[in-house]
C-alpha cells in the first residue's frame, strides 16, 4: 500500500475517471454487438415458433394436471393452480404475438394461425379449470384433457412447420 492512496493527487483522479468512462462505453458496445448474435433469432417466424412451443408446453401441462386430478393423484389446489398458470402463460403469449409487427404475407398468415389456436387453447384450459369444481365434472375433465392434448399436438406441428421456414 503506497502513500498516494490516502493523500489523493487530484490530477490522478481526473485521469482514472476518464478511463472508467471508456470502460463503460466499451462494455455497452460489446453488449450491443452480442445482441446481434442472439439465439432468439429467426425474426418474426422465430418468435412465432417459440410462442407455439411455449403454448404446446402449457397445454400439455394443463392436460397433465387434469389427468392427475381425474386419477385422484392431485389435489384441487395443485391442479387449479397449474391450470391458472397455464392460462396466464397462454394469455401472455397472445399479447406478445399480437404485438409482433409482420411484413410478409407468410408472417401474417402464421401469426393469424397462432393467434386463433391460442384463443382455442385458452378457452379449453379455462373449461378444464371450471370442470374441476363441477359437481359431476368427471366427464368434462376427461374431455377437457383430451381437447388440451389435441390442441397441444396441433401447436407443436405448427411450431415445427414454422421452424423449417426460418
Amino acid at each position, binding site marked *: 500500500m503506497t502513500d498516494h492512496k490516502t493523500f489523493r493527487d487530484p490530477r490522478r483522479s481526473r485521469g482514472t475517471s476518464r478511463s472508467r468512462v471508456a470502460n463503460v462505453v466499451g462494455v455497452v458496445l460489446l453488449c450491443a454487438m452480442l445482441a446481434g448474435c442472439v*439465439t432468439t433469432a429467426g425474426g418474426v417466424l422465430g418468435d412465432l415458433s417459440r410462442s407455439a412451443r*411455449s403454448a404446446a408446453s402449457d397445454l*400439455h*401441462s394443463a392436460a*397433465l394436471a387434469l389427468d392427475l386430478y381425474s386419477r385422484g393423484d392431485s389435489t384441487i*389446489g*395443485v391442479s387449479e*393452480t*397449474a391450470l391458472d*398458470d397455464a392460462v396466464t402463460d397462454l394469455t401472455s403469449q397472445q399479447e406478445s404475438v399480437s404485438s409482433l409487427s409482420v411484413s410478409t404475407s407468410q408472417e401474417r398468415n402464421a401469426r393469424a394461425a397462432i393467434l386463433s389456436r391460442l384463443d382455442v387453447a385458452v378457452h379449453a384450459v379455462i373449461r378444464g379449470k371450471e370442470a374441476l369444481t363441477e359437481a359431476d365434472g368427471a366427464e368434462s375433465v376427461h374431455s377437457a384433457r383430451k381437447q388440451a392434448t389435441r390442441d397441444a399436438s396441433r401447436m407443436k406441428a405448427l411450431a415445427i412447420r414454422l421452424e423449417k421456414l426460418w
Partner: protein
Amino acid sequence: MNKLLGLALGVLTAIGGFLDIGDLVTNSVVGSRFGLTLGWVVIVGVVGICLFAQMSGRVAAVSGRATFEIIRERLGPRAGVANLAASFLINLMTLTAEVGGVALALQLASSIEPWLWMPVAAFAVWLVVWRVKFSIMENVTGLLGLTLIVFAVALFLLHPDWMQLATQAFQPSVAPAGAVPEAGTTYWYYAIALFGAAMTPYEVFFFSSGAVEEKWSIKDLGESRLNVLVGFPLGGILSLAIAAGAAVVLLPKQIAVTSLSQVVLPVAEAGGKLAIAFVLVGIVAATFGAALETTLSSGYTLAQFFGWSWGKFRKPAQAARFHIAMIICLLIGLGVLATGVDPVAVTEFSVVFSAIALPLTYLPILLVANDPQYMGKYVNGRVTNAFGMVYLVIILVASLAAIPLMIITGAGA
C-alpha cells in the same frame, strides 16, 4: 448419546436446509428441458459450496469474527464496498424470490392467490427473525425441509429408465431423446444458472455469522465439517432427484417448467395426494427457511461492514440498526413483489446474478482463510487451496460468461 443426537440434528438440518426456491425452480426447469445432461453442474456446485462453507465456518470459529468484518479489515474499504454492494443487492433479490416462493407454495396448498399470501409471508418471516431463538429457527425449518426427500422417493416410484437417465448424465453433449432442440448457448446459460443456484452466496455470510451467533469455537469445527460434508452432498442428491423427476415426467411431453405448480407435478404423478402433502410442507419450510436466512444475511452484511452492533443473541433494542435494516429489506422485497412481477422470473434472475457476484463474495473468503494473522495454524491446507484455486477459475469464468450468454439466449428463452 446426546452428542450423537446433536450430530444427527446438525446433519439433518443441513440436508433439509440445503434447497431453496432457486434450487427447486432451476433444477426443475433444467430437468424438463435438458434432462440430466446438466447433472454434472450440480456436482460441481455442491463440491464448491462445501469447500467455501467449510472455509467460512472455520474462519468464524477460529477468529471469532464473521465474514464481512474481516473483509473490510483485511482487504480495505474499496474491496469491502464493492463486495458489500454486490452481496447486498443479490441478497435482496434472493430474499424477494424466497418470500415470493413461500406465497406460491401456499397458493398450491390453498388455492388462495399468492398476492394475498405475500404480506403474510413477509410478516411471518419478520416475526420469526424478531422473536425466535436462532437455533430453534434453524432446526425447525431444517427438519421440516427434510420432507423434500419425497422428490427422491418419487423418482423411485416413477420406475424410470435408469439407463436413459445415466446416458443423459454421462453424455452431456448429446441432447436427451424426445427433447425440444436447444441451442448450445442456452445449455451453457442454464449451466451458469444451476451453478449459481447451488453456490448461493448468502449461504456463506449466513454460515459464518451463524457460527458467531452460536458462539462456535475451534472444538465445534469437527461437527461443522461433518454437517457440511455429509449434509450438503445429500442435499445435492435431492437437487438431482428434482431434475430427474422432471426429466422423466415432463421432458417426454415437452413441458418446459415456468411455474412452481409444474415443479410438483412429477411428485403428484409418482405418489398422489400424500406425496403432494409432503412436498408442499417441504417447499414451504425450505423457502421460508431461506427467506429467514436471506433476511438475516442482509442484516449481517450491512451491520458487519459498518460496524454496527448485530446479532440475534442481542436484544433488538441493543442491535437497533441491524433490525431496522432487515425490516426495510423485507418491505423492499414485498414492494417489488407487489408490482405483480412473477416470483419465478425473479428466482431465475436471482440465480444468474448470484453466479455473477460469486467472485466478489468468494475471493475474500479464500484470502482470509489463508491469512495466519486471523487463522493461526488453521490456515488452508494445500489440498483446500488447490481446490480453492480451481474453483476461483470456475467462478470467474461463470461470472464473466453470464451476461453475454444472458443477452445471446434472451435469458434462456
